[in-house]
């Protein structure tokens, strides 16, 4: 009976902890998915699919996170990317939102100061570079590691590094180096 009680308490603690993390990370997951789908509805679907998986078996998720030695945040970000890849593999087509750039902007920047305006400007340029670069740089900006970026693209890490360099330069040129002068 004591074991049952301990298990019950453990479940409670685990669920509360995962829930808080999920609540905190939701906007990032949404933006990550949006950067890939360019469609807000599809992005929300992807995030909610991932969440459904979490609540379906939180114990399994907790176990996987421990085994992989990663954080809940990193795990969920990977899950969002994998879900997107799965959907593409199943033949799902994503229709770009016409106002994708605005939606991304609204989702990412809340700071109304001059710094926020500069970031918004920077983000606008990011939405104008190619899909591959945009996705790669957003994932990098969200803290995904080279190994994860490489795995999701079936590339070697050195190939990903070359691509990152190319995309960063492209973004810098497009944005006119606004932050170098700021």
């Amino acid at each position, binding site marked *: *009976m004591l074991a*049952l*009680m301990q*298990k*019950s308490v453990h*479940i*409670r603690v685990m*669920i509360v902890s*995962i*829930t808080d993390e*999920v*609540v*905190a990370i*939701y*906007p*990032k997951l949404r*933006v990550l998915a949006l950067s890939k789908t360019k469609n807000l*509805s599809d992005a*929300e*679907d992807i995030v*909610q*699919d991932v*969440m*459904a998986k*979490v*609540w*379906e078996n*939180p*114990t399994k998720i907790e176990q996987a996170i421990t085994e992989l030695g990663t954080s809940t945040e990193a795990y969920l970000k990977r899950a969002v990317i994998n879900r997107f890849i799965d959907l593409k593999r199943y033949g799902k087509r994503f229709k770009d939102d016409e106002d994708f750039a605005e939606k991304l902007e609204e*989702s*990412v*920047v*809340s*700071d109304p100061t001059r710094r926020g305006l500069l*970031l918004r400007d*920077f*983000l606008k340029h*990011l939405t104008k570079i190619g899909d591959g670069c945009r996705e790669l*740089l*957003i994932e*990098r*900006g*969200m*803290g995904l590691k*080279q190994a994860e970026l490489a795995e999701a693209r079936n590339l070697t*890490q*050195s*190939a990903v*590094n*070359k691509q*990152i*360099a*190319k995309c*960063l*330069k492209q*973004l*810098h040129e497009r944005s006119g*180096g606004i*932050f*170098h002068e700021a």
Partner: protein
Amino acid sequence: MKREDFEPDDLQGMLIAYLDNQLVGQEKKDFEDLLSRHEDLQADLEIYKITSSKLTELFDMDGVETPLSVEQKIRQASAFGESVLQSSQTPETERAIFEPSEKIASFAAAKEKRSRFFSFQGITQMAAALALGVIIGPSLMGQFNSSDDTQYREALKLRGTVGLPDVKDNSPVAIDRPLDLMRLSSKINKDGISVTKSAPTINSLRDEGPSTLTVGDKIYINFYSIRDGKITIKYEGFNKAGDLKVSDVLAEGASRSKIVDQNVLADKLSLDQNLIVSKFEVPKVDNLRIIVDLVIGDTETITYKKSFKVD
């Protein structure tokens, strides 16, 4: 390390590897030595450094919070996930106690063992489960009377898209599968009825649907039931003066075995079932009213109405 030993692209990649601390030991020292001799590479490194740090700052999303409505849904789903998980711990205990066992030598021993099942903790768990049920509400809990995992998965989804079965024009179909209830109910709970011009996937239900229809439009009428009951769907068409010009019954309760027949429904629509009349053609009238009568038990009838202007 000489610059000539590398392709330009490789060097750029190495700059990223250096920036991200992927180079170590001698390789790192050699690369730093190479860097110190080439100002253009230093400039590139600076670009990568600043642009990368801006990206990190941007996607740190400082100050962006989860909307309260979404947070509530997450917490609701989490509470349900917990209740499922907690209750999944109980059956083993239950089985161990109630299954015939040779180890129980006497009725008194069995009684004692049974009484342990109804311990304080057991009652607390039951109370907690009950409280959760009340909080989550019947619309959600109604989906989980089966232990089928697929059902859990479907209902825990906060959003999703559901395909319609292949149905004949104008024939009503009751969807047993739990739809994306939270989103669905938030859209059409108010009067139970929504209308879409295309097959009513959840995506199309995101919009409230048209308030004005056009003569000849083939619309889908969706009814989302928040109670168990016998159902009748009918429509009434009016002219500008408000005179009734046309009316007909689109669907009414009948035998479940005739569910696929024209204009025939299951005898009862269950809680959280979604009923769809496909491709109903808007008649030549000025105003159209769709009416759903839901008869609960022998006495109670709830009538849902929704009116549309017709061009």
